[in-house]
């Protein structure tokens, strides 16, 4: 029998707010434990939550970017469960009236365009961080109560590749939209994955297994693949898949039972009496819509249509927002988009990946690259010289012009010097000369190479070509 998998994701994204969701404590990753806390986020008697307006703006903008409908009236609920990571032993969240409804994203998966739909996005508060040490558990409430939104997809994916493409797109949109940095290492983006398997042709979905709280895309992919295989083998051996919550052990590459349905929590949701419902007006939504930053897809179109870049270049440049922003910054100092693109796609990405750096750590700044390109465009140096300068600055820093002078990279356009190298090349290579004269124009490239070699790369290639043609055609 053939089986198919159905996958849905619940992705938690920490919003980029200055303060926590319901109090005025700051959030600072890596701060001394329990230093950003107050009566509200510690769940002290009598303390009350107050809604963070910025978080509401960010979740609504995220909703607009993902094509959601913004709920004009949404409300808060308490989700009750006892655990030391939740100071009040209930979490403030949105159960039946979330801020964002529906939505979808279209992504390319293995060459095919697919649209994945969303059920909702709701706002909630983050939990504290528990650390288990010998004989004790330690709780750091710095993260408790920070703004966290949950993007819930429909069960609309069918493979680990789908899930990866979906998560990558969500991350890109959140970063471009200024909603979240989505730094997975800092726990700013985590997903719960729902996986079920059914025989192809069966209408009802199979029993749903939830794999909780994973932050690495690679682990999520591995966990999905493992889980699909596991469920299929359970079914094939005549068993039934148990609806349950499982964890993923990355060391063993396996999922394991955490909680079965019989032991599932009854969260006893009820409306949060300490907070008023959230009303968002049409005017407010339109205002936020007008403030939305450009998304990667829009940037790609602009790079092609306005800057004349090839589709391929536009795709590479916008794949990461850092790189795209760096490109845009460079374009403030030069008009030559293709040259900037070539340097980024070539030298820059190669050197970054070789040295394990991010573009913000590059010693070549947008301004310096623009000056290198300026030197090339003015024919003061040739492209090869430009690449040498780029690499030198990348590794050691420095000023483009000074490096050019120190390395003697200024190119030679002086006719008498070029003429000498050209005559020498023609005299020493009768065969290509003959071929060229016999009607093979490509043969001139060999002669050109000889001139460049003789000039140690400093000859102006345009001027060399012109001179060779003059002499041979003449």
């Amino acid at each position, binding site marked *: 029998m053939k089986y198919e998998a159905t996958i849905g994701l619940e992705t938690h994204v920490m919003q980029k707010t200055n303060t926590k969701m319901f109090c005025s404590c700051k959030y600072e990753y890596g701060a001394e434990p329990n230093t950003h806390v107050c009566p509200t986020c510690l769940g002290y*008697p009598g303390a*009350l939550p*107050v809604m963070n307006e910025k978080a509401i703006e960010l979740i609504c903008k995220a909703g607009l970017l993902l094509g959601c409908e913004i709920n004009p009236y949404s409300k808060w609920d308490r989700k009750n469960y006892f655990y030391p990571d939740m*100071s009040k032993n209930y979490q403030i969240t949105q159960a039946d009236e979330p801020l964002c409804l529906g939505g979808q994203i279209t992504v390319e998966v293995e060459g095919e365009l697919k649209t994945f739909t969303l059920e909702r996005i709701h706002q909630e508060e983050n939990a504290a961080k528990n650390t288990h040490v010998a004989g004790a558990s330690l709780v750091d409430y710095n993260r408790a109560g920070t703004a966290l939104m949950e993007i819930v997809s429909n069960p609309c994916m069918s493979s680990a590749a789908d899930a990866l493409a979906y998560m990558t797109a969500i991350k890109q949109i959140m970063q471009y939209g200024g909603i979240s940095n989505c730094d997975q290492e800092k726990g700013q983006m985590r997903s719960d994955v729902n996986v079920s398997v059914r025989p192809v042709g069966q209408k009802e979905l199979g029993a749903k297994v939830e794999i909780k709280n994973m932050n690495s895309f690679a682990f999520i992919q591995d966990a999905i693949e493992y889980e699909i295989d596991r469920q299929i083998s359970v079914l094939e051996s005549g068993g039934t898949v148990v609806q349950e919550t499982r964890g993923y052990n990355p060391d063993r590459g396996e999922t394991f039972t955490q909680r079965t349905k019989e032991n599932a929590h009854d969260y*006893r949701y*009820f409306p949060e*009496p*300490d907070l008023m419902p959230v009303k968002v007006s049409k005017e407010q939504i339109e205002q936020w819509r007008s403030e939305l930053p450009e998304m990667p897809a829009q940037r790609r179109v602009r790079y092609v249509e306005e800057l004349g870049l090839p589709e391929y270049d536009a795709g590479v440049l916008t794949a990461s927002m850092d790189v795209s922003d760096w490109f845009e910054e460079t374009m403030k100092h030069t008009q030559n988009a293709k040259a900037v693109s070539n340097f980024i796609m070539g030298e820059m990405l190669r050197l970054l990946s070789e040295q394990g750096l991010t573009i913000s750590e590059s010693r070549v700044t947008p301004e310096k690259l623009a000056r290198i390109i300026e030197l090339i465009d003015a024919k003061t140096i040739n492209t090869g010289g430009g690449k040498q300068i780029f690499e030198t600055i990348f590794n050691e820093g420095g000023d483009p012009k000074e490096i050019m002078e120190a390395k003697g990279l200024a190119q030679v356009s002086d006719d008498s010097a070029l003429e000498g190298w050209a005559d020498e090349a023609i005299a020493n290579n009768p065969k290509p000369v003959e071929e060229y004269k016999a009607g093979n124009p490509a043969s001139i490239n060999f002669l050109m190479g000889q001139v460049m070699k003789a000039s140690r790369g400093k000859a102006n290639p345009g001027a060399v070509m012109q001179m060779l043609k003059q002499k041979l055609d003449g």
Partner: protein
Amino acid sequence: MADLNKCTIAELSEKLASGECTSVDIVNDVLASIDANDGKVGAYLTLDREDALAQAEAADEKRVAGSTLPMLGIPVAIKDLLNVKGQPCTCSSKILEGYIAPYDATVISKLREAGAIMLGRVNMDEFAMGSSTESSALGKTSNPWNFDHVPGGSSGGSAACVSADEAIASLGSDTGGSIRQPAAFCGCVGVKPTYGRVSRYGLTAFASSLDQIGPITKSVKDSAILLETLCGYDPMDSSSIDMDVPAFGKNLTDDASLAGMKLGLPKEFFVEGMDPEVEKSVRDAVEHCKSLGAEIVDVSLPNAKYAIAVYYIIATAEASANLARFDGIRYGMRIDGKDPADLYAKTRSAGFGQEVKRRIILGTYVLSSGYYDAYYKKAQKVRTLVRNDFTEAFKQCDAILAPVTPTPAYKKGEKTDDPLKMYLDDILTTPTNLAGNCALSLPCGFASNGMPIGLQIIGDDFQEETILKVGHAYEQSTEWHKARPSL
């Protein structure tokens, strides 16, 4: 001894302004009264004498420097569920043993700004769950009119200390009648403000959608003065309403006329089983209001009879979540266990009393999957009906007159074995909490056994001024509030 402890806020403010006494004198008289009587009354849980005297000295210095703050130098007793920075806040529960509040409740900040002195912390039913202060885990409080009787609750300590002249005024909180009922039982004046009028920030929550802080005093005028201090928008409480606070105190005139006022009488509030002496006193009070020029109209609150059932679903549901934070992890009592669940179970089993456990279990039950619609959701719908009744009634009248409780203060132990009987005591006070509007309780007579009887004046949303006006007119022309228990 000048017996300054027996004076009202209004009287003391005059004495302080004229230099007839100092704040230190007042605090000394109050402390002397506590020394003399609190052994029998049992209102106070904690009292920092030095701190109270230091605050009094500071107030006297301020006055010399020209300050005329409205509450300057007046000592106020605080119900033990309000956070006062640096003080314990036990809610009369063992589970908060050792907890010291790290911050001031908004009403405490407002009292400080108005110059008041935080006197001491007074007893209450554990987590405000109860109507007799007998569920306190930390002490017994007696009714100053007869030590065998309960002071009412949950703000029993707040009412008893004012009644016994062990404080000039106090703060209580009212979730289902917890200010009005003990005020009635002890012969004091108490106000439950409109929901949203007074910030709840710093009030340890029992039922968040019902709780309001309010004053318990010796006169309507004092309630007006103290209420004015407590009210006002607070950005720290999302349920607080941003609207102007009238000058409640100043606006009360000594003219005792009720001419032009329509007062409603709801037939449903004279319930079966009501003590005939209570009914008679209240009906006499209605006649008295008529004699002051008020027109009496019949009004109907047909859904009020469901208030108790609705109240005990909504209040316990909210409480089951509100009290979840008392888990032994961050503050208060902790009994270690082999894992977090074990620690919670042991701590909460030992820390909470019977009544609190009963309500947590009830609240957890009504919110449980499969029961939510039948209980909680339905209760919310009936709550809307109760509120609509008041809206209709206030189209016909300016305020409603009613008893506060079906009986005067009963004897200790009389109802502790029958929680349902105790719950029914709240039948005339809970409708106002469910609807959110305001109400006042003031003395209107005595039963033949000498226990005080209260009159309830219920107002529409944010109509505190109206009920204070009616109460003040009644008080001006009667003598009930002047009677004092002999201790």
